[in-house]
């Protein structure tokens, strides 16, 4: 499905209100209704929405991984979700270090 098929504001339809995939240095690989990703510190990033979502009670789905997919974990949100941003926290489960990963994906419904 192409991004243009989505419509902001329609969580009752099951359509995503925002999607993004970014890499270890927060370079955005693909996005819909996401203006930027802010790196606050290692492993803590804020995903900013271009247009505000319809409410703050959206469903936020996320996943992280490296090429070897051995030690990563995402446990966001790091703070209460808002209509304009979602703060995502990722860390390595083996040593607890706050870490960014090669593939981080997020979708808001």
């Amino acid at each position: 499905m192409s991004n243009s098929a989505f419509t902001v504001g329609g969580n009752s339809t099951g359509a995503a209100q925002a999607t993004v995939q970014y890499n270890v240095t927060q370079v955005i690989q693909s996005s819909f209704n996401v203006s930027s990703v802010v790196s606050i510190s290692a492993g803590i990033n804020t995903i900013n929405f271009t247009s505000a979502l319809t409410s703050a009670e959206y469903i936020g789905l996320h996943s992280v991984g490296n090429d070897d997919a051995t030690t990563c974990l995402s446990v966001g949100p790091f703070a209460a979700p808002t209509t304009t941003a979602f703060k995502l926290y990722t860390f390595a489960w083996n040593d607890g270090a706050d870490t960014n990963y090669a593939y981080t994906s997020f979708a808001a419904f």
Partner: protein
Amino acid sequence: MAQKLFLKTSENTIQYISPSPKASIQKDLAAGKDAFIEHCKKSHLYDVGRGQPNPRHNAHISWATGVKDFANLSDEEHKNLILCDAPANHQYHHWIDEDTVDVCHPLRNAWTDIDAAGNVTYDPVKAKALVVAALTTKVTAARKLVESTSDAADDTTVAESALAAAKQALGNAKVATVASHDDVVNILMPMLK
């Protein structure tokens, strides 16, 4: 070359912002300026209604008002939209080529200043704490390795050497006197290798 927006916060830390490409944002804004401003106004009322007013809505309205053509954003207009995502109380910011600054640097969380060329300075106390924490993790890992290799003499020797090296580096880091950026680079960084 793509650029990131680096900014210094009021908490004396450095954050950076990676923008979505202009083409993606223009797709997101395809409904046009009036629709976008109307959406921002509704969102503002929603957030005020639940007791959590968000200044970003007004920032977006101000930005949209100044845009000439939503279907053809200029580079400056694109940058100004991303600036709406910066904390309102940030002290200064620079747009810097993303390859210029090593954002995966081990002492990234100890950055305190950055100039327009991407040169960073550190908080030595924070930097030392980060190095000690990283070396402590190394010691723990090396100790586990020793405990798990008791039935292979060669492996045990290697693991014990790794543990001894990690312990020595940790001890050195704890006693190292760190007063400047140069000290961080010259004294502490080699201990992480």
